[in-house]
């Protein structure tokens, strides 16, 4: 292979990645859905056990629906924990959301406080939406570089 061919091939690769970044459009409702899923998970301990499990079942059921929607809208599915700079964002969001969830469990089940888990759920919505927006920005920047 000639050296000039290598440069041309790398340019073609970068071009494909930039095109992909443009195709990976994420509308505001998609970020909101992710935030609501996180909020629902964190707030779930506030409810009595039957409702709690119903909420968790709905949340689990939403995951394949979101994947289906992403595939239909973009023609691809990008794993949030993909290798790259976005993994740091995804892990950061996961750690914070899990901390909120376990805090919620403690308040609801150990301290019998049903209000704080709802407030933590609201915080989880905001963090989920913010995390999703940051993830998208990092993804586009990484592939467009």
């Amino acid at each position, binding site marked *: *292979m000639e*050296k000039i061919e*290598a*440069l041309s091939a790398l340019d*073609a*690769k970068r*071009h494909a990645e930039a*095109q*992909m970044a443009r195709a990976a459009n994420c509308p505001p409702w998609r970020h909101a859905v992710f935030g609501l899923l996180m909020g629902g998970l964190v707030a779930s301990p506030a409810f009595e056990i039957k409702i709690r499990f119903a909420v968790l079942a709905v949340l689990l059921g939403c995951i394949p629906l979101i994947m289906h929607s992403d595939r239909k809208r973009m023609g691809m599915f990008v794993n949030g924990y*993909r290798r790259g700079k976005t993994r740091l964002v995804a892990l950061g969001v996961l750690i914070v959301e899990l901390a909120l969830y376990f805090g919620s469990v403690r308040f609801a089940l150990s301290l019998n406080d049903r209000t704080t888990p709802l407030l933590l759920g609201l915080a989880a919505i905001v963090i989920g939406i913010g995390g999703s927006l940051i993830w998208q920005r990092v993804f586009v920047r990484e592939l467009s570089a």
Partner: protein
Amino acid sequence: MDVPTGFDAALHPPARLQIAAVLAQAQEAEFALLKDITGTSDSVMSKHLAALADAGYVAVRKANLGGRQRTWASLTSAGRKAFRQHVKALEMLALSVADDEPSVGDANPES
């Protein structure tokens, strides 16, 4: 400079490298998206996907989405490894281009 190893004939055509580049980022991508990104026709894309599948680098499946049968492609672990090695080899070769380019001071070594 030594010629870098890791080049893969199956990934040499630019369209195939682009397909692998997209699939390396996405868990799965649809035929139409890959066609748009690479700017190829249906038949050319089919041939490239078949070549990559024959090499064991791409897995292809058909699935219904929105009432239509669509073709989805994903990179296998062998494909992911081959892509990484191929890109690394390309980058090494590209760097050697930069190294070989004469600087202003090298333009006339006699002076």
